[in-house]
């Protein structure tokens, strides 16, 4: 089912990770990603994995959901793994025809695949535990300084939050139109590429029409509530740093320091 797509989806919960300020979480993801790409040996990678494991445990996000999010990446992961395995020069331990597999190759392949998996999982935890609205609020607040150099931060974030807001709606709509056309015998699953592309017309035209209609209605609804941009706009729920955010920040700094330290000292 289409509605089971998990991309950018929020799973409600009430854990420390859910309660953190979205700005803290966004910054932590950046720190985590920097650390992840700095880490270049088994020890530092293990530290990163422990950290990720701790966050997963704290957030109580089901491992199965995280793994399901990885499914679309399966092909990329496989190609990355295979290319690195075969193309890394080194002492071959297995070789056949033109292919050589070296110990270094296997090590590199595993390392890279683990790194990508951990990268994706880390960012998924952010979207799984943060409602889209607070995510964009956090982004707007973090990008606040850019307003000085006339970057339309508010407009950008409201576009983003609207896009996020309408992903589930559009998915549901797609599902509905697809069912309606299937009920009239439309076939989206068989046939060659050309045939399948053509079969999408009865789905895409109604979908576009309804998206435009929705956009129109949304614009009217916003204007009738006197929306006119971010100037002087206040929030119902202001963002507030708490002690747990400070602690999380310290943990992040410690993590980054540890990984950089390990890399430099080696």
């Amino acid at each position: 089912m289409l509605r089971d797509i998990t991309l950018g989806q929020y799973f409600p919960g009430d854990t420390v990770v859910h309660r953190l300020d979205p700005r803290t979480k966004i910054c932590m993801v950046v720190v985590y990603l920097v650390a992840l790409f700095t880490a270049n040996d088994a020890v530092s990678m293990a530290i990163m994995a422990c950290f990720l494991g701790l966050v997963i445990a704290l957030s109580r996000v089901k491992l199965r959901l995280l793994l399901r999010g990885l499914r679309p990446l399966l092909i990329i992961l496989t190609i990355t793994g295979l290319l690195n395995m075969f193309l890394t020069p080194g002492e071959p331990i297995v070789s056949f025809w033109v292919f050589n597999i070296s110990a270094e190759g296997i090590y590199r392949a595993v390392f890279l695949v683990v790194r990508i998996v951990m990268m994706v999982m880390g960012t998924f935890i952010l979207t799984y535990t943060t409602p889209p609205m607070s995510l964009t609020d956090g982004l707007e607040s973090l990008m606040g300084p850019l307003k000085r150099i006339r970057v339309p931060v508010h407009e950008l974030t409201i576009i983003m939050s609207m896009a996020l807001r309408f992903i589930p709606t559009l998915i549901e709509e797609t599902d509905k139109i697809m069912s309606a056309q299937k009920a009239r015998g439309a076939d989206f699953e068989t046939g060659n590429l050309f045939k399948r592309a053509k079969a999408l017309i009865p789905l895409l035209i109604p979908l576009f029409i309804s998206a435009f209609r929705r956009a129109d209605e949304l614009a009217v609804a916003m204007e009738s509530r006197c929306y006119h941009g971010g100037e002087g706009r206040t929030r119902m729920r202001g963002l507030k740093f708490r002690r747990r955010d400070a602690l999380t920040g310290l943990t992040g700094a410690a993590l980054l320091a540890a990984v950089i330290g390990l890399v430099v000292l080696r």
Partner: protein
Amino acid sequence: MLIRTQNLTHTYSVGTPFERTAIRGVDFHAQKGEVIGLIGHTGSGKSTLIQHLNGLLPPTSGTVFFDGEDIHASKQTTKRVRFRVGLVFQYPEYQLFEETVERDIAFGPKNMGLDTGEIAARVEEAAALAGLTKELLQQSPFALSGGQKRRAAIAGVMAMRPEVLILDEPTAGLDPRGRDEIMSGIRRFHRETDATVILVTHSMEEIARTADRIVVMNDGEIAMQGTRNEVFARSAELNAMGLDVPEITRVAMRLRAMGLDLPENIFTVEQAARAILTLKGGGPNAS
């Protein structure tokens, strides 16, 4: 028995925090030529149930039989059943996509693999049943009025000549005239093809006027079923489920409570008018 479900259960989003069982152990059946009114509050599982009847949703457990055959026996069976059980979704006008109404109605028959002559005949027939004029057929579906769009979409399903026609709230959001046009189109289709019609609606008046049998769903289960006399006699239970009897039935009930000697089975305005006239001694034909 044309359609039968056995112990049908469906759960959405299995394995996520959004997991929700929409219908539970439903045994539903429909006979040939029958008009069934399916009622229930929002979220009672009506829409989930009807999407099982033409195989759009696979059951989580339980079986759906069409003409004695399990509709999920093979992919071919499911596909064949889709053409024999026509399903009109809520707000079906949002599925229109072709350049002309005629071509949109032809979409279903074309998918059935019929030849051009047969398709043209079916389009003409369905358009007439749904009450669309010849001029409308050549227009873009997006240029029509709301009620006309709705009828064009319904004609698109009727054109497949289904043996069972299921409609999910076909009159929602239309004005009284639009509602009447849709309902008379559905009655015309039933009269001329003798197909089974399953009508999901929130309008007790439409049910009272059209259905032979009423099936009431509550919280994913069938709460009661029977003729309109049997079902509407249990108005207290219906109220408890957030449903109601037709307005005119309520009026008759109040009049009876006030001492007027009206019969108990009044479900349409016409019945009420006749009964009151009889009571006044004028007889049904006096004015």
